């Protein structure tokens, strides 16, 4: 068995950590785009559309992310699609993120007091004009803290992509441990890696929340 120096371990983890960051960014950006489209459709759409979107949100919120990854990877293979671990992880995490963001953002739009809708309506603004000029700007300010907060869940969620063979931080940790057998050191470093990524975001979310209260909105 070869000897691993601490630097060997750290270097390998850092290299794999890049893919954790990239996957998180893909999931978050994709999730935000899909989530925004779903939110707008859900707020203004026809009843069957709204019902479908709610079902979508409930499905993704009500099943483990791990199963979603399995379905995207192995399920797609059964159906005859040859998907890479990359594609499967990106798709599953994007859909998972979009479902949660759709629900968070719907809550933010609904949190804008009904008096704002009434005032817009009385001034003659139609639905889209009210949304654009009155409701969304206020909902957006409400949405930033919980959205940043949720991004932490996305980063930690990428760890599950290790089970379909996607080599990111966690998977790299497992592989290194198989070779070097220093579980305490290695997994502590892996955990620390996630902490380094997540902690600033948590702090930033808390800061934004305070700022929002300070501005007297809500």
């Amino acid at each position, binding site marked *: 068995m070869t000897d691993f120096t601490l630097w060997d371990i750290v270097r390998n983890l850092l290299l794999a950590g890049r893919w954790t960051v990239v996957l998180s960014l893909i999931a978050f950006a994709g999730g935000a785009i899909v989530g925004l489209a779903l939110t707008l459709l859900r707020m203004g759409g026809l009843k069957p559309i709204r019902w479908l979107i709610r079902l979508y949100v409930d499905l993704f919120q009500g099943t483990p992310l791990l199963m979603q990854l399995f379905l995207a990877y192995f399920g797609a293979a059964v159906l005859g699609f040859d998907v890479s671990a990359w594609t499967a992880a990106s798709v599953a995490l994007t859909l998972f993120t979009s479902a949660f963001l759709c629900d968070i953002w719907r809550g933010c739009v609904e949190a804008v*007091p009904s*008096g*704002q809708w*009434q*005032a817009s*309506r*009385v*001034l*003659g*603004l*139609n639905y889209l*004009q009210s949304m654009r*000029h*009155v409701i969304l*700007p*206020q909902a957006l*300010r409400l949405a930033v803290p919980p959205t940043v907060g949720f991004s932490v869940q996305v980063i930690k969620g990428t760890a599950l992509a290790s089970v379909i063979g996607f080599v990111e931080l966690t998977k790299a940790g497992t592989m290194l441990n198989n070779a070097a057998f220093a579980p305490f050191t290695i997994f502590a470093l892996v955990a620390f890696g996630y902490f380094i990524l997540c902690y600033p975001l948590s702090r930033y979310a808390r800061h934004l929340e305070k700022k929002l209260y300070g*501005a*007297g*909105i809500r």
Partner: protein
Amino acid sequence: MALVSVKDLHKSFGELEVLKGIDLEIEAGEVVSIIGRSGSGKSTLLRCLNQLERHDWGTIHLADQRLDGGAMSPGELSQNVGMVFQSFNLFPHKTVIENVMLAPVVVKQTPKAEARRIAEQVLDKVGMSEKVDAYPAQLSGGQQQRVAIARALAMNPKVLLCDEVTSALDPELVGEVLRVLEDLAREGMTLILVTHEMTFARDVSHRVVFMHQGRIHESGDPQTLFTQPRTPELKQFIASVV
């Protein structure tokens, strides 16, 4: 020809019949105060007049034009009937002048410069021209309500509806808002107010309408109505509020 003409207006919320047949004619330039206990239907009547609530039966005409049942788009309605709320409902993310300019620019498509001129004019009318760049949160309740009045006036409506516009204000701030309404009344603006300010109803309005259990129970000129109420319900109401 009355400016506002309401015929046989009915409105229910589920099982509860809130308006049980309202007939009301209001002339141009008239100031009408609607009084009554909470639950008597006065706010619902007001909200039907600009279709914030859809009534179940009856018609509303403005001048010669049908106003209800989708006959007017929200855009058209807003240029005929303005409304001021108890809770102001200013847009918190916009400055005073942006609040006032929004509807003229977005709904009427008035050019920005022209909209700004109109906004400055109406803000001057309510005595708020010093605060054009302030945000609503930086203003007192009375100031916010005056901006809300200016915002409604910027659409140049024929009628202004006021739904308990002083009820959310600290007592010392009520006067400044009532003075603005008095000025508007003097200039000939048609005002329909739901109000708990009996002194104001008596001194400024041309006519007082007393609502009771979804009907207009009694109406007439304020002096007679307040000094010689005909029905026991109105007598009781006056005794309880004065």
